């Protein structure tokens, strides 16, 4: 009898478990970021903020894990069919916020829309089509073997095709992507994600509520309501956390790390980031930069460790290449070189012992401490007799200058959208070509066709070990050639109240998986 009773109670408890799970999602989270999503249309702009929104309100086919592996989300499994094709199996029974059920039709709709999006179409260029097999099976087909197929698939957040099809009252297509002005998708949203947008005042606050029919019932997440307030001012954001006004902030400015570490009510999480900060040396503008010895001299004259320690307060990882640790091209043997005597020696060998004068430009509100870093670099170059005429600009004015290559040395920070080394090379060191868009941000006008060919070869190599070897070689050659001046990878930092367990949901891409957040 007792046994029977236990079994009965046990089965009751089991039956009640999923109920209890959803009923438990009643915690409220107030968070402050430095910006709010510019739109609710996840295909309108490719940016960190938009991806954060995508992960909250939609769900990708698969997503990155903490160690840069993949984890299935809406796609249950995938397998390679041939060199150019990957077959995906879609999870069944997934509901959109509108109540519609997710099928391959929605994935197809999303894929076609991505191909239309001005911001995303470049990423999806290698894909020739998405072939629907049945309601829950589809194939991604590339025109050539493509090693980054899965990386790119993390950008597919299926949208509710029924919801986004048709016309609005004023005759606008609901699926239209508009960069400026309003569109249906920029104000209405239906995804499969853990949160539904329940209120939004642009620039003031966004409110989210947990989606009752969220498919992932295994998720430990227990936050029922999220209020996001954009707070741009660093000091104010930190004060809001310290005073208990918000539970979770990002990013944490380097100057306040100590203050938060000391605070007994707060937790700080930091990670080495993947955004490289570097300087280009323009060979078209300065004759001397054509000489590899001069470029090497500059590389030797700049103290990356010093900048990371003093200006960035230890909140940066000194770099000698573009690929951060974990990327396929990361080459462990490359370390920052700093040797003023060697630098002076190289200048002498190149015949520039007396030095020369150059212009330099950097933004002053884009990257962490960007203007201070530029000043430090200018001072370091003075030691090898290169006189620097430095100008720093707000980012809105900086980028037009950058596009015009308006100074001899220019600063840029870059994060690879594909989380892959080749992306760095394609944009920053490829021989500039206006037609193909190669080297679009190569303000050094550095050009080495051999290296470009090697990267292109790596881009169709699906054997990842072979590919990694090629990309590592590229890093090595760029390093030997001193094609650019790497400075550091910007670190990432988040902070929360002690009862908000952010550590497990954070990652190096900086899109927290808030659906899985546990608040005690």
């Amino acid at each position, binding site marked *: 009898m007792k046994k029977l009773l236990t079994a009965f109670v046990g089965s009751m408890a089991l039956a009640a478990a999923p109920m209890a799970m959803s009923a438990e999602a009643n915690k409220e989270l107030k968070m*402050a970021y430095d910006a709010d999503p510019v739109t609710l249309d996840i295909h309108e702009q490719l940016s960190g903020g938009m991806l954060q929104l995508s992960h909250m309100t939609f769900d990708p086919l698969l997503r990155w894990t903490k160690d840069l592996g993949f984890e299935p989300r809406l796609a249950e499994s995938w397998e390679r069919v041939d060199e150019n094709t990957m077959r995906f199996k879609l999870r069944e029974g997934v509901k959109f916020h509108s109540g519609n059920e997710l099928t391959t039709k929605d994935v197809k709709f999303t894929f076609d829309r991505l191909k239309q999006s001005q911001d995303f179409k*470049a990423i999806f260029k290698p894909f020739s089509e998405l072939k629907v097999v049945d309601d829950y099976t589809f194939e991604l087909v590339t025109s050539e073997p493509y090693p980054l197929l899965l990386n790119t698939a993390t950008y597919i957040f299926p949208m509710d095709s029924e919801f986004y099809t048709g016309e609005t009252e004023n005759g606008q297509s609901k699926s239209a992507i508009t960069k400026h002005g309003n569109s249906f998708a920029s104000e209405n949203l239906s995804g499969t994600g853990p949160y539904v947008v329940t209120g939004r005042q642009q620039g003031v606050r966004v409110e989210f509520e947990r989606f009752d029919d969220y498919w992932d019932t295994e998720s430990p997440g227990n936050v029922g309501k999220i209020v996001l307030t954009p707070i741009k001012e660093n000091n104010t954001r930190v004060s809001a956390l310290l005073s208990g006004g918000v539970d979770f902030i990002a990013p944490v400015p380097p100057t306040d790390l100590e203050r938060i570490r000391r605070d007994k009510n707060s937790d700080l999480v930091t990670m080495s980031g993947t955004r490289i900060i570097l300087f280009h040396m323009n060979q078209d503008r300065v004759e001397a930069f054509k000489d590899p010895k001069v470029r090497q001299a500059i590389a030797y004259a700049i103290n990356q460790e010093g900048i990371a320690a003093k200006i960035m307060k230890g909140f940066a990882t000194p770099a000698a290449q573009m690929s951060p640790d974990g990327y396929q091209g990361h080459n462990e043997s490359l370390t920052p070189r700093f040797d003023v005597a060697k630098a002076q020696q190289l200048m002498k060998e190149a015949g520039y012992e007396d030095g020369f004068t150059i212009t330099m430009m950097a933004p002053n509100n884009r990257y962490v401490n960007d203007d201070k870093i530029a000043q430090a670099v200018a001072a370091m170059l003075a030691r090898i007799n290169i006189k620097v005429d430095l100008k720093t600009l707000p980012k809105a004015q900086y980028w037009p200058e950058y596009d015009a290559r308006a100074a001899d040395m220019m600063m840029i920070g870059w994060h690879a*959208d594909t989380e892959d080394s080749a992306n760095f090379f394609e944009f920053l060191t490829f021989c500039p070509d206006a037609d193909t868009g190669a080297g679009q941000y190569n303000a050094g006008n550095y050009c080495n066709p051999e290296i470009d060919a090697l990267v292109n070869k790596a881009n169709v190599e699906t054997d990842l070990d072979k590919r990694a070897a090629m990309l590592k070689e590229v890093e090595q050659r760029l390093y030997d050639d001193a094609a650019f001046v790497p400075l550091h990878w910007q670190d990432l930092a988040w902070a929360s109240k002690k009862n908000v367990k952010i550590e497990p949901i954070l990652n190096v891409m900086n899109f927290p998986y808030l659906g899985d957040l546990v608040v005690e």
Partner: protein
Amino acid sequence: MLAFLVQRISQAVLVMFVISVIAFAIQDGLGDPLQQMVGMSVSQEEREAIRDEMGLNDPLVVQYLHFAGNALQGDLGTSYFYGKPTLDVILEHLPATLELVIGASLIILVFSVPIGVYAAIRPQAWLSKFFMGVSTVGISIPVFLTAIVLIQLFSIGVTVDWFPDDSGWGQWLNGALSTQGGLPSYGRGDDLTPLFGTWNSGFFSQGGILHLILPSVSLASIMLPLFIRLIRAEMMEVLQSDYIRYARAKGLSSARINFLHALKNTMLPVITVGGVQIGIMVAYTILTETVFQWPGVGLMFLEAITRSDIPLIVAYLMVVGLIFVITNTVVDLIYGLVNPTVKLTGKKA
């Protein structure tokens, strides 16, 4: 009176025109609005296409004429960032700023008049000297610093443990110097009361008022000392004048002399200065709103600049220009009411 208004309205139109031309002329220096709208990896071709679509490639004169034509029909353009008509965006943000200004003005009014009058009547009292000293300090501290200190003291709280905690006096001193914190440090809070249209007010709930305290005090901190000193100086001058002496000689009570006869004449210049200061306050709201993430027009304007949201910048400047013209007109009218000998149009009557 009518002539005065006509003159003011034509002035306003001229001001609007000049502002719009200047705002348009400097837009090239404001940077590329497209940079905020597209991802880094978008190709040059795509950018050009969007630029064409937005009319950014047209000559500036064409752009201006297009803008001016729409503006005459009450359409000041569409904000790039908000995707809405700029006037709507400004009207949405205006209540927050107005409430902040009202809050600060109340603080200024409530404190400056009694303190200023007191300091004028009893210039030698230690309390007067204390107030004057504090106001000198107040004038010289930048508003954002005041704001940061206020946040540290009253939102985060400060725990002082410089004195030995085991002795009675040490404990008392530590306690006296420590602050609790707890006041909200950002934004307007959740309990706003809808008034009309897009106006949600913070004046009718405890939460709303608590959120108003620190920003209002910060904003008032810059003007309050100024008004105290102004009222004191004017009042002292008035107290020296013949009619006050005569009133004293007549044996009127000093309360009647000070608060009825003297104060009335003191307030005249204060009103004029006050009107101008309201305009200046608009500028200070930008700083205050930035520090407190106060969702008003000041913060909106600053962010519009960092985003190169040119239509919004132009519209904001024009609205602020209009507010200046209106406040100055109202001040002149009030001045005329308080002192009927003043002729508004400046013509001989």
